[in-house]
Protein backbone atom coordinates (compact mmCIF):
# COMPACT_ATOMS: atom_id res chain seq x y z
CA UNK A 1 0.00 0.00 0.00
CA UNK A 2 2.73 2.37 0.97
CA UNK A 3 4.66 1.51 -2.14
CA UNK A 4 1.64 2.20 -4.34
CA UNK A 5 1.08 5.58 -2.69
CA UNK A 6 4.69 6.53 -3.28
CA UNK A 7 4.37 5.52 -6.89
CA UNK A 8 1.28 7.75 -7.23
CA UNK A 9 2.91 10.73 -5.52
CA UNK A 10 5.72 10.97 -8.00
CA UNK A 11 3.56 11.72 -11.04
CA UNK A 12 1.30 13.99 -8.98
CA UNK A 13 4.23 16.05 -7.87
CA UNK A 14 5.51 16.16 -11.41
CA UNK A 15 2.14 17.35 -12.65
CA UNK A 16 2.03 20.04 -9.99
CA UNK A 17 5.46 21.30 -10.85
CA UNK A 18 4.58 21.33 -14.52
CA UNK A 19 1.38 23.19 -13.80
CA UNK A 20 3.15 25.88 -11.82
CA UNK A 21 5.70 26.31 -14.55
CA UNK A 22 3.04 26.54 -17.19
CA UNK A 23 1.07 29.15 -15.30
CA UNK A 24 4.16 31.32 -14.88
CA UNK A 25 4.90 31.14 -18.56
CA UNK A 26 1.37 32.14 -19.42
CA UNK A 27 1.55 35.21 -17.21
CA UNK A 28 4.78 36.27 -18.80
CA UNK A 29 3.31 35.71 -22.20
CA UNK A 30 0.31 37.87 -21.27
CA UNK A 31 2.55 40.64 -19.97
CA UNK A 32 4.67 40.67 -23.06
CA UNK A 33 1.55 40.68 -25.21
CA UNK A 34 0.15 43.63 -23.22
CA UNK A 35 3.41 45.53 -23.55
CA UNK A 36 3.46 44.88 -27.25
CA UNK A 37 -0.13 46.04 -27.50
CA UNK A 38 0.59 49.22 -25.57
CA UNK A 39 3.69 49.88 -27.54
CA UNK A 40 1.67 49.60 -30.68
CA UNK A 41 -1.07 51.89 -29.31
CA UNK A 42 -1.23 55.19 -31.04
CA UNK A 43 -3.45 58.17 -30.40
CA UNK A 44 -4.01 61.32 -32.40
CA UNK A 45 -3.47 63.81 -29.57
CA UNK A 46 -4.92 66.82 -31.39
CA UNK A 47 -7.98 64.95 -32.59
CA UNK A 48 -8.72 63.55 -29.14
CA UNK A 49 -8.44 66.96 -27.52
CA UNK A 50 -10.68 68.40 -30.18
CA UNK A 51 -13.31 65.71 -29.54
CA UNK A 52 -13.25 66.47 -25.84
CA UNK A 53 -13.78 70.15 -26.62
CA UNK A 54 -16.60 69.52 -29.07
CA UNK A 55 -18.54 66.60 -27.61
CA UNK A 56 -18.67 67.64 -23.97
CA UNK A 57 -20.57 70.58 -22.52
CA UNK A 58 -18.73 73.41 -20.83
CA UNK A 59 -19.95 76.47 -18.98
CA UNK A 60 -17.19 78.65 -20.42
CA UNK A 61 -15.77 78.77 -23.92
CA UNK A 62 -12.47 76.89 -23.86
CA UNK A 63 -9.69 78.33 -26.01
CA UNK A 64 -6.74 76.43 -27.36
CA UNK A 65 -3.47 77.28 -25.65
CA UNK A 66 0.01 77.39 -27.01
CA UNK A 67 1.89 74.31 -25.72
CA UNK A 68 4.57 76.62 -24.29
CA UNK A 69 1.96 78.15 -22.01
CA UNK A 70 0.88 74.70 -20.83
CA UNK A 71 4.47 73.78 -19.95
CA UNK A 72 4.62 76.90 -17.75
CA UNK A 73 1.26 76.14 -16.16
CA UNK A 74 2.27 72.56 -15.33
CA UNK A 75 5.90 73.23 -14.49
CA UNK A 76 7.15 70.62 -16.94
CA UNK A 77 10.00 70.66 -19.43
CA UNK A 78 9.34 70.78 -23.14
CA UNK A 79 11.76 67.89 -23.65
CA UNK A 80 9.49 65.56 -21.70
CA UNK A 81 6.60 65.95 -24.13
CA UNK A 82 6.36 64.76 -27.71
CA UNK A 83 2.97 66.27 -28.55
CA UNK A 84 0.43 68.18 -26.51
CA UNK A 85 -2.83 69.99 -27.02
CA UNK A 86 -4.71 71.94 -24.36
CA UNK A 87 -7.90 73.96 -24.04
CA UNK A 88 -8.44 76.30 -21.09
CA UNK A 89 -11.13 78.47 -19.63
CA UNK A 90 -10.76 82.27 -19.50
CA UNK A 91 -10.67 81.99 -15.73
CA UNK A 92 -14.40 82.02 -15.20
CA UNK A 93 -14.43 78.25 -14.51
CA UNK A 94 -12.00 75.45 -13.66
CA UNK A 95 -12.73 73.62 -16.92
CA UNK A 96 -9.76 72.55 -18.99
CA UNK A 97 -8.49 69.78 -21.27
CA UNK A 98 -4.95 68.46 -21.73
CA UNK A 99 -4.06 65.53 -23.97
CA UNK A 100 -0.40 64.68 -24.39
CA UNK A 101 2.07 62.07 -25.51
CA UNK A 102 5.23 61.71 -23.47
CA UNK A 103 8.58 61.87 -25.22
CA UNK A 104 9.58 58.58 -23.68
CA UNK A 105 8.17 55.98 -21.30
CA UNK A 106 10.15 57.29 -18.34
CA UNK A 107 8.61 60.75 -18.70
CA UNK A 108 5.03 59.59 -18.31
CA UNK A 109 5.40 59.32 -14.52
CA UNK A 110 6.68 62.87 -14.23
CA UNK A 111 3.91 64.21 -16.43
CA UNK A 112 1.22 62.31 -14.57
CA UNK A 113 2.56 63.64 -11.27
CA UNK A 114 2.45 67.18 -12.66
CA UNK A 115 -1.19 66.79 -13.67
CA UNK A 116 -2.12 65.31 -10.31
CA UNK A 117 -0.40 68.23 -8.64
CA UNK A 118 -2.39 70.63 -10.81
CA UNK A 119 -5.69 69.07 -9.79
CA UNK A 120 -4.76 69.33 -6.11
CA UNK A 121 -3.55 72.91 -6.49
CA UNK A 122 -6.66 73.97 -8.41
CA UNK A 123 -8.85 72.56 -5.63
CA UNK A 124 -6.89 74.58 -3.09
CA UNK A 125 -7.17 77.79 -5.09
CA UNK A 126 -10.84 77.46 -5.97
CA UNK A 127 -11.78 76.55 -2.41
CA UNK A 128 -11.48 80.24 -1.51
CA UNK A 129 -11.84 81.81 -4.97
CA UNK A 130 -14.94 80.03 -6.33
CA UNK A 131 -16.00 77.12 -4.10
CA UNK A 132 -18.68 75.97 -6.54
CA UNK A 133 -15.91 74.87 -8.90
CA UNK A 134 -14.39 72.42 -6.43
CA UNK A 135 -16.96 69.71 -7.17
CA UNK A 136 -16.05 69.84 -10.86
CA UNK A 137 -12.41 69.42 -9.93
CA UNK A 138 -13.30 66.45 -7.81
CA UNK A 139 -14.75 64.85 -10.93
CA UNK A 140 -11.60 65.52 -12.98
CA UNK A 141 -10.50 62.55 -15.09
CA UNK A 142 -6.88 61.56 -15.57
CA UNK A 143 -6.37 58.44 -17.68
CA UNK A 144 -3.12 56.94 -18.91
CA UNK A 145 -2.34 54.42 -21.60
CA UNK A 146 1.13 53.77 -22.91
CA UNK A 147 2.77 57.14 -23.48
CA UNK A 148 -0.53 59.02 -23.52
CA UNK A 149 -2.34 60.98 -20.85
CA UNK A 150 -5.84 62.41 -21.02
CA UNK A 151 -6.83 65.04 -18.46
CA UNK A 152 -10.17 66.82 -18.43
CA UNK A 153 -12.27 68.87 -16.04
CA UNK A 154 -15.78 69.16 -17.43
CA UNK A 155 -19.28 69.77 -16.18
CA UNK A 156 -20.28 66.13 -16.85
CA UNK A 157 -17.51 63.99 -15.39
CA UNK A 158 -19.14 60.66 -16.24
CA UNK A 159 -19.56 61.56 -19.88
CA UNK A 160 -15.95 62.71 -20.00
CA UNK A 161 -14.75 59.42 -18.54
CA UNK A 162 -16.79 57.35 -20.98
CA UNK A 163 -15.38 59.31 -23.88
CA UNK A 164 -11.85 58.88 -22.62
CA UNK A 165 -12.21 55.13 -22.16
CA UNK A 166 -13.75 54.79 -25.59
CA UNK A 167 -10.91 56.68 -27.22
CA UNK A 168 -8.27 54.77 -25.33
CA UNK A 169 -9.86 51.43 -26.25
CA UNK A 170 -10.70 52.20 -29.86
CA UNK A 171 -8.60 55.14 -30.94
Amino acid sequence: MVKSVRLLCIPIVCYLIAGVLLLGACDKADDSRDSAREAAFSLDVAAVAERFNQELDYRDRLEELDPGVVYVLLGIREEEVRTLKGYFSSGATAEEIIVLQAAEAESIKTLRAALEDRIAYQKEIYASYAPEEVRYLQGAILLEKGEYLIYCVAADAEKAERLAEQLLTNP
Partner: protein
Amino acid sequence: MTRQGTSRISNGFRMLFSAFLASVCLRSKNSSKILCENNCFILYNKDTITRETGMQPLKQKKRTLHGFIAVLACFVLIAGAMINMASMKNAVNTAIHRVSSIFAADDQTAADDQTAADNQTASAALPGSSQEADPEPETATTEGMLRDSANSATENTSEKPEGPEDDAVIANTGEALNPNFTDVVEDIGEIIVEDTAEEVVELVVEEDPEELWRKTFYPVPSSPAVDEFYFRDALFIGDSRVMGLMLYSGLTVEATFYTEKGVNVTTLLTKAIVLQTGGNRITIPEALNDLQFGKIYIKTGINELGWRSLKSYIEAYGEVIDRIRELQPEAVIYIQSILPVSQKKAEEGGYFTIPRVLEFNEEIKKMTWEKGVYYLDVFQGMVNEEGFLPEEAGNDGIHLNKEYCKIWLEYLKRHVVRDYGY
Protein backbone atom coordinates in the same frame (compact mmCIF):
# COMPACT_ATOMS: atom_id res chain seq x y z
CA MET B 1 36.46 137.15 -59.64
CA THR B 2 38.94 136.45 -62.44
CA ARG B 3 39.81 138.86 -65.20
CA GLN B 4 38.12 136.54 -67.65
CA GLY B 5 35.00 136.49 -65.57
CA THR B 6 34.97 140.28 -65.39
CA SER B 7 35.25 140.62 -69.12
CA ARG B 8 32.41 138.20 -69.57
CA ILE B 9 30.18 140.24 -67.32
CA SER B 10 30.98 143.39 -69.22
CA ASN B 11 30.26 141.59 -72.47
CA GLY B 12 27.02 140.48 -71.03
CA PHE B 13 25.98 143.99 -70.19
CA ARG B 14 27.01 145.05 -73.65
CA MET B 15 24.81 142.35 -75.11
CA LEU B 16 21.93 143.40 -72.97
CA PHE B 17 22.21 146.96 -74.07
CA SER B 18 22.46 145.86 -77.63
CA ALA B 19 19.49 143.64 -77.23
CA PHE B 20 17.59 146.56 -75.85
CA LEU B 21 18.57 148.60 -78.88
CA ALA B 22 17.63 145.74 -81.10
CA SER B 23 14.23 145.52 -79.61
CA VAL B 24 13.78 149.22 -80.26
CA CYS B 25 15.16 149.09 -83.78
CA LEU B 26 12.93 146.29 -84.78
CA ARG B 27 10.12 148.74 -85.07
CA SER B 28 12.00 150.94 -87.52
CA LYS B 29 11.47 150.66 -91.25
CA ASN B 30 15.11 150.84 -91.91
CA SER B 31 15.88 148.51 -89.16
CA SER B 32 17.81 146.09 -91.17
CA LYS B 33 19.99 148.76 -92.69
CA ILE B 34 20.58 150.57 -89.40
CA LEU B 35 21.37 147.38 -87.68
CA CYS B 36 23.83 146.42 -90.30
CA GLU B 37 25.62 149.74 -90.11
CA ASN B 38 25.92 149.55 -86.38
CA ASN B 39 26.90 145.97 -86.67
CA CYS B 40 24.15 144.92 -84.27
CA PHE B 41 23.17 141.38 -83.56
CA ILE B 42 19.82 140.49 -85.04
CA LEU B 43 18.25 137.27 -86.00
CA TYR B 44 15.89 137.87 -88.85
CA ASN B 45 16.65 138.89 -92.39
CA LYS B 46 19.71 136.86 -92.33
CA ASP B 47 20.16 137.07 -96.06
CA THR B 48 20.04 140.89 -95.99
CA ILE B 49 22.69 141.01 -93.32
CA THR B 50 24.76 138.54 -95.11
CA ARG B 51 24.55 140.52 -98.32
CA GLU B 52 25.11 144.02 -96.97
CA THR B 53 27.66 143.40 -94.35
CA GLY B 54 29.42 140.56 -95.97
CA MET B 55 29.50 138.71 -92.75
CA GLN B 56 30.24 135.08 -92.87
CA PRO B 57 27.40 132.70 -91.97
CA LEU B 58 29.39 131.39 -89.02
CA LYS B 59 29.76 134.82 -87.52
CA GLN B 60 26.13 135.48 -88.25
CA LYS B 61 25.16 132.39 -86.31
CA LYS B 62 27.24 133.50 -83.39
CA ARG B 63 25.61 136.86 -83.35
CA THR B 64 22.18 135.23 -83.63
CA LEU B 65 22.97 133.19 -80.59
CA HIS B 66 24.18 136.21 -78.74
CA GLY B 67 20.95 137.96 -79.54
CA PHE B 68 18.96 135.12 -78.05
CA ILE B 69 21.01 135.16 -74.91
CA ALA B 70 20.64 138.90 -74.55
CA VAL B 71 16.86 138.77 -74.80
CA LEU B 72 16.71 135.89 -72.37
CA ALA B 73 18.90 137.77 -69.93
CA CYS B 74 16.51 140.69 -70.06
CA PHE B 75 13.61 138.50 -69.05
CA VAL B 76 15.62 136.91 -66.25
CA LEU B 77 16.59 140.26 -64.86
CA ILE B 78 13.04 141.51 -64.96
CA ALA B 79 11.72 138.33 -63.22
CA GLY B 80 14.38 138.52 -60.54
CA ALA B 81 13.47 142.06 -59.82
CA MET B 82 9.84 141.07 -59.37
CA ILE B 83 10.74 138.25 -56.94
CA ASN B 84 12.91 140.54 -54.92
CA MET B 85 10.09 142.94 -54.63
CA ALA B 86 7.88 140.18 -53.20
CA SER B 87 10.55 139.19 -50.68
CA MET B 88 10.90 142.74 -49.64
CA LYS B 89 7.18 142.83 -49.08
CA ASN B 90 7.34 139.72 -46.90
CA ALA B 91 10.15 141.15 -44.83
CA VAL B 92 8.20 144.32 -44.25
CA ASN B 93 5.14 142.36 -43.17
CA THR B 94 7.22 140.25 -40.76
CA ALA B 95 8.57 143.34 -39.11
CA ILE B 96 5.08 144.73 -38.72
CA HIS B 97 3.86 141.48 -37.18
CA ARG B 98 6.67 141.28 -34.64
CA VAL B 99 6.14 144.83 -33.53
CA SER B 100 2.42 144.25 -33.08
CA SER B 101 3.01 141.00 -31.14
CA ILE B 102 5.23 142.79 -28.64
CA PHE B 103 2.48 145.22 -27.82
CA ALA B 104 -0.07 142.40 -27.60
CA ALA B 105 2.10 140.25 -25.25
CA ASP B 106 1.09 142.16 -22.17
CA ASP B 107 -2.57 141.63 -22.86
CA GLN B 108 -2.05 137.88 -23.48
CA THR B 109 -0.25 137.35 -20.14
CA ALA B 110 -3.33 138.38 -18.25
CA ALA B 111 -5.48 136.08 -20.40
CA ASP B 112 -3.11 133.11 -19.82
CA ASP B 113 -3.36 133.41 -16.07
CA GLN B 114 -7.10 133.09 -16.31
CA THR B 115 -6.94 130.05 -18.61
CA ALA B 116 -4.40 128.29 -16.35
CA ALA B 117 -6.74 128.72 -13.38
CA ASP B 118 -9.60 127.27 -15.42
CA ASN B 119 -7.49 124.26 -16.43
CA GLN B 120 -6.68 123.40 -12.82
CA THR B 121 -10.38 123.16 -12.15
CA ALA B 122 -10.87 120.96 -15.22
CA SER B 123 -8.05 118.55 -14.21
CA ALA B 124 -9.89 117.54 -11.03
CA ALA B 125 -12.41 115.57 -13.13
CA LEU B 126 -12.66 111.73 -13.28
CA PRO B 127 -9.69 109.83 -14.76
CA GLY B 128 -9.61 109.76 -18.49
CA SER B 129 -12.09 112.60 -18.85
CA SER B 130 -9.40 115.13 -19.63
CA GLN B 131 -7.81 112.85 -22.18
CA GLU B 132 -8.93 112.61 -25.77
CA ALA B 133 -10.64 109.39 -26.67
CA ASP B 134 -8.01 107.34 -28.44
CA PRO B 135 -5.81 110.26 -29.47
CA GLU B 136 -3.64 109.96 -32.58
CA PRO B 137 -0.43 108.27 -31.48
CA GLU B 138 2.54 110.61 -31.47
CA THR B 139 6.09 110.35 -30.36
CA ALA B 140 5.91 111.36 -26.74
CA THR B 141 9.01 113.51 -26.68
CA THR B 142 9.58 116.06 -24.00
CA GLU B 143 8.98 119.02 -26.29
CA GLY B 144 5.92 117.42 -27.74
CA MET B 145 4.43 116.77 -24.32
CA LEU B 146 5.19 120.27 -23.12
CA ARG B 147 3.79 121.86 -26.25
CA ASP B 148 0.64 119.75 -26.13
CA SER B 149 0.13 120.49 -22.48
CA ALA B 150 0.57 124.19 -23.06
CA ASN B 151 -1.75 124.16 -26.03
CA SER B 152 -4.40 122.35 -24.05
CA ALA B 153 -4.00 124.92 -21.30
CA THR B 154 -4.35 127.87 -23.67
CA GLU B 155 -7.29 126.34 -25.52
CA ASN B 156 -9.20 125.89 -22.27
CA THR B 157 -12.93 126.04 -22.64
CA SER B 158 -12.97 127.77 -26.04
CA GLU B 159 -12.94 125.61 -29.14
CA LYS B 160 -9.78 125.62 -31.16
CA PRO B 161 -10.21 127.89 -34.17
CA GLU B 162 -9.84 126.43 -37.62
CA GLY B 163 -7.68 127.45 -40.59
CA PRO B 164 -5.35 130.38 -40.37
CA GLU B 165 -6.62 131.22 -36.90
CA ASP B 166 -4.72 128.14 -35.71
CA ASP B 167 -1.60 130.13 -36.30
CA ALA B 168 -3.05 132.87 -34.17
CA VAL B 169 -3.36 130.44 -31.25
CA ILE B 170 0.12 129.13 -31.78
CA ALA B 171 1.46 132.67 -31.94
CA ASN B 172 -0.23 133.23 -28.60
CA THR B 173 -1.46 136.66 -29.47
CA GLY B 174 -4.80 135.89 -27.88
CA GLU B 175 -6.70 136.96 -30.98
CA ALA B 176 -6.78 136.12 -34.67
CA LEU B 177 -4.31 137.78 -36.97
CA ASN B 178 -5.45 140.44 -39.41
CA PRO B 179 -6.91 138.50 -42.36
CA ASN B 180 -4.72 140.50 -44.70
CA PHE B 181 -1.77 138.67 -43.32
CA THR B 182 -3.17 135.16 -43.66
CA ASP B 183 -1.41 134.54 -46.95
CA VAL B 184 1.79 135.78 -45.41
CA VAL B 185 1.31 133.56 -42.37
CA GLU B 186 1.61 130.46 -44.48
CA ASP B 187 4.87 131.67 -45.94
CA ILE B 188 6.39 132.50 -42.61
CA GLY B 189 4.80 129.68 -40.66
CA GLU B 190 8.19 128.40 -39.61
CA ILE B 191 9.04 131.71 -38.07
CA ILE B 192 5.78 131.74 -36.14
CA VAL B 193 6.52 128.27 -34.74
CA GLU B 194 9.88 129.43 -33.46
CA ASP B 195 8.27 132.35 -31.72
CA THR B 196 5.62 130.06 -30.27
CA ALA B 197 8.22 127.64 -28.89
CA GLU B 198 9.85 130.44 -26.96
CA GLU B 199 6.53 131.55 -25.59
CA VAL B 200 5.58 127.96 -24.70
CA VAL B 201 8.76 127.57 -22.70
CA GLU B 202 7.89 130.69 -20.80
CA LEU B 203 4.43 129.29 -20.12
CA VAL B 204 5.93 126.04 -18.76
CA VAL B 205 8.19 127.84 -16.37
CA GLU B 206 5.27 129.73 -14.91
CA GLU B 207 3.22 126.53 -14.38
CA ASP B 208 3.89 124.17 -11.47
CA PRO B 209 6.27 121.47 -12.80
CA GLU B 210 4.63 118.78 -10.73
CA GLU B 211 1.21 119.75 -11.98
CA LEU B 212 2.51 119.69 -15.55
CA TRP B 213 4.02 116.24 -15.00
CA ARG B 214 0.74 115.00 -13.61
CA LYS B 215 -1.22 116.34 -16.60
CA THR B 216 1.26 114.85 -19.05
CA PHE B 217 1.89 111.37 -17.65
CA TYR B 218 -1.13 110.51 -15.54
CA PRO B 219 -2.34 108.36 -17.07
CA VAL B 220 0.46 107.25 -19.40
CA PRO B 221 -0.38 108.83 -22.75
CA SER B 222 -0.59 107.11 -26.07
CA SER B 223 2.74 106.49 -27.80
CA PRO B 224 4.02 104.71 -30.91
CA ALA B 225 3.33 101.01 -30.56
CA VAL B 226 6.11 98.69 -29.43
CA ASP B 227 6.33 95.05 -30.44
CA GLU B 228 6.42 91.91 -28.32
CA PHE B 229 10.18 92.15 -28.04
CA TYR B 230 9.70 95.16 -25.77
CA PHE B 231 8.23 92.82 -23.14
CA ARG B 232 11.20 90.47 -23.01
CA ASP B 233 12.21 91.96 -19.65
CA ALA B 234 8.67 92.57 -18.44
CA LEU B 235 6.98 90.97 -15.45
CA PHE B 236 3.22 90.85 -15.04
CA ILE B 237 1.84 90.45 -11.54
CA GLY B 238 -1.82 90.12 -10.71
CA ASP B 239 -5.05 88.26 -10.36
CA SER B 240 -7.10 85.99 -12.60
CA ARG B 241 -7.59 88.64 -15.26
CA VAL B 242 -3.84 88.98 -15.62
CA MET B 243 -3.72 85.19 -15.80
CA GLY B 244 -6.01 85.46 -18.81
CA LEU B 245 -3.52 87.84 -20.37
CA MET B 246 -0.85 85.22 -19.79
CA LEU B 247 -2.94 82.47 -21.35
CA TYR B 248 -4.20 84.29 -24.42
CA SER B 249 -2.04 87.29 -25.28
CA GLY B 250 0.79 85.25 -26.77
CA LEU B 251 3.33 87.01 -24.56
CA THR B 252 4.35 83.97 -22.57
CA VAL B 253 7.44 83.45 -24.65
CA GLU B 254 8.70 87.00 -24.11
CA ALA B 255 7.30 88.09 -20.76
CA THR B 256 7.11 86.53 -17.31
CA PHE B 257 3.85 86.16 -15.42
CA TYR B 258 3.36 85.74 -11.69
CA THR B 259 -0.40 85.49 -11.49
CA GLU B 260 -3.07 83.46 -9.79
CA LYS B 261 -6.81 83.36 -9.41
CA GLY B 262 -8.18 84.82 -6.23
CA VAL B 263 -5.08 86.72 -5.05
CA ASN B 264 -5.53 90.18 -3.57
CA VAL B 265 -3.16 92.88 -2.32
CA THR B 266 -2.69 91.13 1.02
CA THR B 267 -1.90 87.68 -0.41
CA LEU B 268 -0.16 88.70 -3.63
CA LEU B 269 3.31 88.64 -2.11
CA THR B 270 2.72 86.05 0.59
CA LYS B 271 1.06 83.19 -1.28
CA ALA B 272 3.31 80.69 -3.09
CA ILE B 273 2.01 81.13 -6.62
CA VAL B 274 5.22 81.00 -8.67
CA LEU B 275 5.56 77.47 -10.06
CA GLN B 276 9.09 76.34 -10.77
CA THR B 277 10.05 73.54 -13.11
CA GLY B 278 9.73 70.35 -11.13
CA GLY B 279 6.60 71.35 -9.28
CA ASN B 280 7.92 73.49 -6.43
CA ARG B 281 6.02 76.74 -5.71
CA ILE B 282 7.55 79.87 -4.19
CA THR B 283 6.36 83.40 -3.39
CA ILE B 284 6.88 86.40 -5.67
CA PRO B 285 9.53 88.04 -3.43
CA GLU B 286 11.48 84.77 -3.42
CA ALA B 287 11.28 84.60 -7.19
CA LEU B 288 12.37 88.25 -7.55
CA ASN B 289 15.52 87.65 -5.53
CA ASP B 290 17.17 85.89 -8.42
CA LEU B 291 15.86 87.87 -11.37
CA GLN B 292 15.92 91.48 -12.53
CA PHE B 293 13.21 92.95 -14.73
CA GLY B 294 13.13 96.14 -16.79
CA LYS B 295 9.46 96.85 -16.34
CA ILE B 296 6.81 95.47 -14.00
CA TYR B 297 3.07 95.65 -14.62
CA ILE B 298 0.91 95.21 -11.53
CA LYS B 299 -2.84 94.81 -11.56
CA THR B 300 -5.22 94.00 -8.72
CA GLY B 301 -8.60 95.19 -7.61
CA ILE B 302 -11.32 92.97 -9.02
CA ASN B 303 -11.15 90.73 -5.94
CA GLU B 304 -11.14 93.73 -3.61
CA LEU B 305 -14.19 95.57 -4.92
CA GLY B 306 -16.13 94.05 -2.07
CA TRP B 307 -13.80 95.39 0.60
CA ARG B 308 -15.45 97.64 3.11
CA SER B 309 -12.49 99.99 3.35
CA LEU B 310 -11.10 101.48 0.19
CA LYS B 311 -8.43 103.14 2.27
CA SER B 312 -7.19 99.76 3.51
CA TYR B 313 -6.96 98.53 -0.04
CA ILE B 314 -4.92 101.53 -1.14
CA GLU B 315 -2.58 101.26 1.84
CA ALA B 316 -2.00 97.56 1.21
CA TYR B 317 -1.47 98.25 -2.49
CA GLY B 318 1.08 100.89 -1.62
CA GLU B 319 2.96 98.40 0.53
CA VAL B 320 3.05 95.96 -2.38
CA ILE B 321 4.55 98.66 -4.60
CA ASP B 322 7.12 99.56 -1.97
CA ARG B 323 8.18 95.94 -1.62
CA ILE B 324 8.40 95.40 -5.36
CA ARG B 325 10.48 98.55 -5.76
CA GLU B 326 12.75 97.42 -2.97
CA LEU B 327 13.34 94.11 -4.76
CA GLN B 328 13.53 95.61 -8.25
CA PRO B 329 14.93 99.14 -7.89
CA GLU B 330 15.80 99.50 -11.58
CA ALA B 331 12.43 98.47 -12.95
CA VAL B 332 9.84 100.85 -14.36
CA ILE B 333 6.63 100.10 -12.48
CA TYR B 334 3.24 100.41 -14.15
CA ILE B 335 0.04 100.15 -12.14
CA GLN B 336 -2.91 99.16 -14.28
CA SER B 337 -6.38 100.41 -13.47
CA ILE B 338 -9.18 97.96 -12.77
CA LEU B 339 -10.85 96.83 -15.98
CA PRO B 340 -14.57 97.47 -16.42
CA VAL B 341 -17.27 94.83 -16.02
CA SER B 342 -20.05 94.11 -18.47
CA GLN B 343 -23.46 95.70 -18.16
CA LYS B 344 -25.02 92.33 -17.50
CA LYS B 345 -22.61 91.70 -14.65
CA ALA B 346 -23.13 95.17 -13.24
CA GLU B 347 -26.89 94.71 -13.25
CA GLU B 348 -26.62 91.54 -11.18
CA GLY B 349 -26.03 93.69 -8.15
CA GLY B 350 -23.27 93.34 -5.67
CA TYR B 351 -19.91 95.02 -5.84
CA PHE B 352 -19.17 94.64 -9.54
CA THR B 353 -20.46 98.01 -10.68
CA ILE B 354 -18.87 100.69 -12.84
CA PRO B 355 -19.12 103.49 -10.24
CA ARG B 356 -17.37 101.24 -7.75
CA VAL B 357 -14.63 100.45 -10.26
CA LEU B 358 -14.20 104.13 -11.08
CA GLU B 359 -14.04 105.03 -7.40
CA PHE B 360 -11.28 102.50 -6.89
CA ASN B 361 -9.42 103.65 -10.00
CA GLU B 362 -9.43 107.26 -8.88
CA GLU B 363 -7.76 106.31 -5.61
CA ILE B 364 -5.30 104.03 -7.38
CA LYS B 365 -4.34 106.88 -9.66
CA LYS B 366 -3.68 109.21 -6.73
CA MET B 367 -1.68 106.52 -5.00
CA THR B 368 0.54 105.98 -8.04
CA TRP B 369 1.28 109.70 -8.13
CA GLU B 370 2.33 109.65 -4.49
CA LYS B 371 4.44 106.53 -4.99
CA GLY B 372 6.10 107.86 -8.13
CA VAL B 373 5.02 105.02 -10.38
CA TYR B 374 3.11 105.12 -13.67
CA TYR B 375 -0.63 104.74 -14.00
CA LEU B 376 -2.01 102.86 -17.02
CA ASP B 377 -5.69 103.58 -17.60
CA VAL B 378 -6.53 100.26 -19.22
CA PHE B 379 -10.14 100.87 -18.16
CA GLN B 380 -10.44 103.48 -20.88
CA GLY B 381 -8.84 101.12 -23.36
CA MET B 382 -11.45 98.41 -22.87
CA VAL B 383 -14.67 100.27 -22.15
CA ASN B 384 -17.40 100.67 -24.79
CA GLU B 385 -19.48 103.73 -25.53
CA GLU B 386 -21.93 102.89 -22.78
CA GLY B 387 -19.15 102.72 -20.25
CA PHE B 388 -19.11 98.95 -19.79
CA LEU B 389 -16.96 96.02 -20.81
CA PRO B 390 -18.50 94.72 -24.06
CA GLU B 391 -20.65 91.61 -23.53
CA GLU B 392 -18.70 89.71 -26.16
CA ALA B 393 -15.44 90.32 -24.25
CA GLY B 394 -16.01 87.36 -21.97
CA ASN B 395 -18.43 84.76 -20.75
CA ASP B 396 -18.95 86.04 -17.22
CA GLY B 397 -18.58 89.78 -17.76
CA ILE B 398 -15.31 89.89 -15.84
CA HIS B 399 -12.71 87.60 -17.40
CA LEU B 400 -11.58 88.41 -20.91
CA ASN B 401 -11.57 85.88 -23.73
CA LYS B 402 -8.72 85.43 -26.17
CA GLU B 403 -9.81 88.20 -28.53
CA TYR B 404 -10.09 90.84 -25.83
CA CYS B 405 -6.87 89.80 -24.15
CA LYS B 406 -5.18 90.65 -27.42
CA ILE B 407 -6.95 94.04 -27.45
CA TRP B 408 -5.67 94.60 -23.93
CA LEU B 409 -2.16 93.75 -25.08
CA GLU B 410 -2.47 96.25 -27.95
CA TYR B 411 -3.33 98.95 -25.41
CA LEU B 412 -0.23 98.10 -23.41
CA LYS B 413 1.88 98.22 -26.56
CA ARG B 414 0.63 101.74 -27.32
CA HIS B 415 1.13 103.13 -23.83
CA VAL B 416 4.75 102.90 -22.79
CA VAL B 417 6.96 105.41 -21.08
CA ARG B 418 10.24 106.13 -22.77
CA ASP B 419 13.25 107.78 -21.24
CA TYR B 420 12.78 111.51 -21.47
CA GLY B 421 15.41 112.35 -18.93
CA TYR B 422 12.94 112.46 -16.05
